[in-house]
């Protein structure tokens, strides 16, 4: 049997490093190995490279270079943003009235990435009030809900720019305008947005968005894993979560990961230069895939608003079957995708994002994410359209759901037919 074709459709999980990015990075692993904090030549060479990368990453989001804090990735950026702001707010409160126990209020959504969701859960345990806004059937938070949730002690709104599972784009610019309006009235309120999935896929500008903090990850835009950045608007105070040296203007102690940062800079430049053609390419493949699938498979449900979403991503629930089984079947045919089913995430509950859309367990467990990238070709779509319907049919044939009763949720006793 011929070697099966390999088709990678999981670019929202990670992307391969672009060869031009690797080329830019390699010298910083060997001859240009200096510590960017060192005074000597080796150190200054590394420092100059980090600063160049900082300008490139800043340019991707319309920020100033000195507003970028390099971190290890999206999770750290999100953690630093939320902890850094809420810690700063606590220290302000205790300075003004000596009361450390007075916690604030944070507004977020019910479809955030686990690195935002987890920090918010933790804050809640420590006495903070957390409002998690609904995303409705279309997977988009409503600005009026944000406005209605504001309290006198709200210090932070954390709303992702685009969702990682369904790709829906959130009204961050509208919320940014609201935050600026509130701040003009003397209120201490900040806006953080997790732009890990959006960066490099849609144009981003921190001025237009009106956000104070914005998280980025390098490996989602064709750079290696291990680097990320947090934009912190000038004048916004975040308390460093790392203790040690004075790196990153006291906001993130620890030796800069120079090779990863250089790669991030090179990838950010390419993302800016090639964004339009990449988006166009991904969108064309995605739309072609979705149209082909709709013709070939019945009982599928598209998750999330199909107009207001990232161009490279498609999230589809296949009725009567469970996502992980389909993922494995596709994997055996060389096709790599993701699922929101509980098995994959190691929990009992299926994807909270798909559940947040109001979908039942069957649809949440049957959700598969297909995310396209710049190296996918038309033939990849053809291949998936040829394989996927067969795999779905096979699993549906062994599923009791479409034959006996449609829902797996209700516990039933023995059903005998003798």
């Amino acid at each position, binding site marked *: 049997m011929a070697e099966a074709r390999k088709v990678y459709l999981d670019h929202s999980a990670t992307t391969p490093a672009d060869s031009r990015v690797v080329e830019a990075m390699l010298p910083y692993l060997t001859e240009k190995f200096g510590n960017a904090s060192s005074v000597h030549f080796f150190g200054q060479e590394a420092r100059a490279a980090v600063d160049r990368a900082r300008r490139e990453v800043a340019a991707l989001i319309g920020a100033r270079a000195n507003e970028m804090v390099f971190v290890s990735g999206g999770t750290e950026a999100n953690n630093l943003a939320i902890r850094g702001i809420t810690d700063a707010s606590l220290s302000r409160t205790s300075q003004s009235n000596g009361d450390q126990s007075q916690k604030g209020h944070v507004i977020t959504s019910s479809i955030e990435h686990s690195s935002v969701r987890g920090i918010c859960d933790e804050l809640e345990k420590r006495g903070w009030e957390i409002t998690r806004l609904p995303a409705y059937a279309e997977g988009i938070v409503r600005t009026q809900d944000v406005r209605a949730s504001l309290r006198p002690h709200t210090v932070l709104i954390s709303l992702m720019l685009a969702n990682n599972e369904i790709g829906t784009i959130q009204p961050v610019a509208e919320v940014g305008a609201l935050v600026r309006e509130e701040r003009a009235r003397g209120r201490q309120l900040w806006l953080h947005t997790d732009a890990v999935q959006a960066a490099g896929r849609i144009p981003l500008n921190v001025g237009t968005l009106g956000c104070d903090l914005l998280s980025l990850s390098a490996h989602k835009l064709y750079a290696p894993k291990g680097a990320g950045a947090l934009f912190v608007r000038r004048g916004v105070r975040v308390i460093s979560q790392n203790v040690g040296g004075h790196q990153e203007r006291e906001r993130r102690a620890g030796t800069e990961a120079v090779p990863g940062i250089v790669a991030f800079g090179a990838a950010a430049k390419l993302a800016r230069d090639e964004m339009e053609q990449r988006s166009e390419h991904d969108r064309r493949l995605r739309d072609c895939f979705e149209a082909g699938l709709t013709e070939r498979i019945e009982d599928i449900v598209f998750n999330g608003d199909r107009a207001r979403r990232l161009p490279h991503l498609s999230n589809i629930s296949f009725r009567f079957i469970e996502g992980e*089984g389909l993922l494995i079947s596709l994997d055996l045919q060389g096709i790599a995708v993701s699922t929101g089913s*509980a098995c994959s995430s*190691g929990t009992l509950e299926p994807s909270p994002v798909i559940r947040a859309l109001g979908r039942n367990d069957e649809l949440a467990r049957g959700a598969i994410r297909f995310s396209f990238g710049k190296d996918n070709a038309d033939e990849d779509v053809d291949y998936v359209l040829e394989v996927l319907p067969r795999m779905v049919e096979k699993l549906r044939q*062994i599923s009791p759901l479409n034959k006996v009763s449609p829902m797996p949720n209700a516990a039933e006793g023995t059903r005998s037919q003798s």
Partner: protein
Amino acid sequence: MDPVYWISTSNSEPRTLYSQAFKDHIANPRNAGELPDANATGEETNPVCGDRLRISLRVREGRIEAAGFLAYGCPPTLVCGSVLTELIMGKTVAEAMLLTRKDLLEAVGGLPSRKQHAAALGIETLRSAIESGCSDLIN
């Protein structure tokens, strides 16, 4: 059978890896479907995760001649259904009634503790099926 399923647990995120044999049962399930001439059928649902298994048997003279399964749920549930049908075919009903969760676990090459309910569902469904048939099937 080689170990078909194993798990490595990092600090917070358990990752599941599947062997080729395990994946093969997913891609090529054995005895999938409902037997048209079954004389015993059982169906059980795991109330916690919603996984569902349905087993149909054709029993002649106290011996399981043919078995079929339908399954909805995570891969271990699908594989337990597939392996179970292989395990019981040719056995007498009395022998099949003696099969335990442990036997099925062994036959699939082991499951991590949080997935062992898949084997429990398999055995439970098998017993439901046998009990649904005429009681004289057992003899």
